[in-house]
């Protein structure tokens, strides 16, 4: 058996899901005895059979990847419950094994996979999908790039209708459920869990359950970063449309038209609103400095 074949055989065995009792499956995916399959390439020793030695790696794999997803998607786990969440994760990882050198990207395809496999999140598919989108946005916001921030004192050049670029770490989400509140409640429960009395814990769990039963409610959310911590900021529909338009590369005037399309708002009020948005968002550092400004700084 050559190197590639040994590794392929071991890979297939290692990523095969464990039994409900967290042991290696007695059969391979094509129905062969796993004991026989393991014995073909793994040596036994005086304490462990080939099967048992291979099983150590099989268990390590699943404990590691399931642990990583549980850490990254604690909100989804709270919605589904531990058991249902774990079953979902196993099915996801069978269909979408890691294709990245880093575990950070393990959940990158979870949302699109769930859209194709909604049976895993019924009957609360909408709520669960929103939570997955929020939790993935949080991962992206945590370590995405930050470019030099635009400040009102920065010159805008001669362009009468400039383009403003959003920081790569600013994630914009249109949600059908207030999952930001739910995720914060889940986090609060976890952080209090170790220290709280049983009575307090029960109250916290009830709060999470209550939050998870929330009715649909449109939420426009920016997931952003400040001082290296991730925050959620709710936006109104116009602000959300405006930012999305800028993110799509549109000019300031085009973004204003998009944001207020179909709304009967006086021009003077629009101007004031946009001005207050810019004050708030530039304080938060959401806009990148225009490249022309950077070039001027370098040349001077």
């Amino acid at each position, binding site marked *: 058996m050559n190197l590639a074949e040994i*590794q392929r055989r071991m890979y297939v065995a290692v990523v095969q899901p464990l039994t409900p009792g967290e042991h290696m499956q007695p059969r391979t995916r094509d129905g062969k005895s796993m004991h026989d399959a393991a014995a073909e390439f793994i*040596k036994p*020793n005086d304490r462990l059979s080939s099967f*048992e*030695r291979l099983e150590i790696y099989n268990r*390590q794999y699943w404990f590691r990847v399931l642990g990583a997803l549980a850490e990254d998607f604690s909100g989804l786990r709270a919605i589904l419950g531990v058991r249902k969440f774990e079953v979902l994760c196993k099915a996801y990882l069978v269909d979408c094994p890691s294709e990245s050198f880093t575990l950070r990207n393990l959940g990158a395809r979870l949302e699109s996979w769930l859209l194709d496999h909604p049976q895993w999140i019924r009957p609360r598919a909408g709520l669960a999908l929103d939570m997955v989108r929020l939790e993935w946005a949080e991962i992206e916001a945590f370590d*995405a790039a930050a470019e030099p921030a635009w400040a009102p004192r920065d010159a805008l050049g001669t362009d009468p209708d400039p383009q403003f670029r959003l920081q790569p770490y600013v994630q914009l989400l249109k949600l059908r459920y207030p999952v930001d509140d739910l995720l914060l409640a889940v986090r609060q429960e976890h952080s209090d869990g170790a220290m709280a009395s049983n009575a307090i814990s029960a109250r916290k769990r009830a709060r999470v359950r209550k939050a998870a039963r929330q009715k649909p409610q449109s939420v426009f959310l920016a997931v952003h970063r400040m001082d290296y911590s991730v925050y959620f900021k709710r936006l109104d529909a116009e602000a959300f449309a405006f930012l999305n338009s800028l993110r799509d590369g549109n000019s300031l005037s085009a973004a204003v038209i998009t944001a207020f399309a179909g709304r009967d708002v006086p021009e003077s009020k629009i101007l004031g609103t946009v001005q207050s948005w810019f004050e708030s968002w530039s304080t938060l550092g959401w806009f990148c400095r225009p490249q022309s400004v950077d070039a001027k700084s370098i040349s001077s």
Partner: protein
Amino acid sequence: MRANRFNGFSDFGIGIGLRVPHYQHILSEKPVVDWFEIISENYMVDGGRPLHVLDQILEQYRVVQHGVSMYFGSPEAPDWEHLKRLKALVKRTKTPWLTDHLCWGSVDGRYTHDLLPMPYTLEAARVTAQKIREVRDFLEVPIAVENVSSYAEFHFSEMSEWEFLTEVVESADCGILLDVNNIYVSSRNHNFNPHDYVAGIPAERVAQIHIAGHSKFEKYILDTHDHPVIDPVWKLYAHALELAGPTATLLEWDDNIPSFEEVHNEALKANRFIAEMKVAS
């Protein structure tokens, strides 16, 4: 400490792994530590807190990069995105040498995120050495490969693990990150004398030594990095020092991580063995 071409002719002493629970203590108290080892993959990101903390650490400390996912023993070509990000980090840290494991962990671009054992064959040694050379040529930094703990052996192996390690590092002309805890763990799992291992490798290629703790189970030992170093591992460490000379040494503690002081004090126990070795020689 022993400087050689495999550790960039550096003089690093006793270091510890940089871990998240210690960030605040290190940045606020600025303890005296000779160097930190970072897990490269944790900092191969575009921005945010990981790089912010790393930059602050780099202002005050020497840092060496240790990777967990290059998989020199997987026959497929290195992932281009991985290499580009790793090289950017190498430029940022100015690591004098870079380490990763003598293992495999991916097949056809699918990752297990584990350090899987190699079959000890000449074919595997040739494939692995070639990949180490390619990665080193791209990164332009000395590379040392680490022996892993293992729980399985293959029927197809043609040599001992230490013979395989020797074959790989001599073919690739690279260094060794000698993990004496991993040698101990594997020796118990595979019934060999760990001192034969230490004596059997080209000591002049040792760029760095790892020490760590592990967990004992009924029928095997797991490399868990969640305990202090046990005496038999310290003895192996002393043996390695006898052969390789005083070498840059790092304590790994990755789970149930105690206070910074406890981890650092455990690492500094290595100084006693270095002093004894110097007296003896």
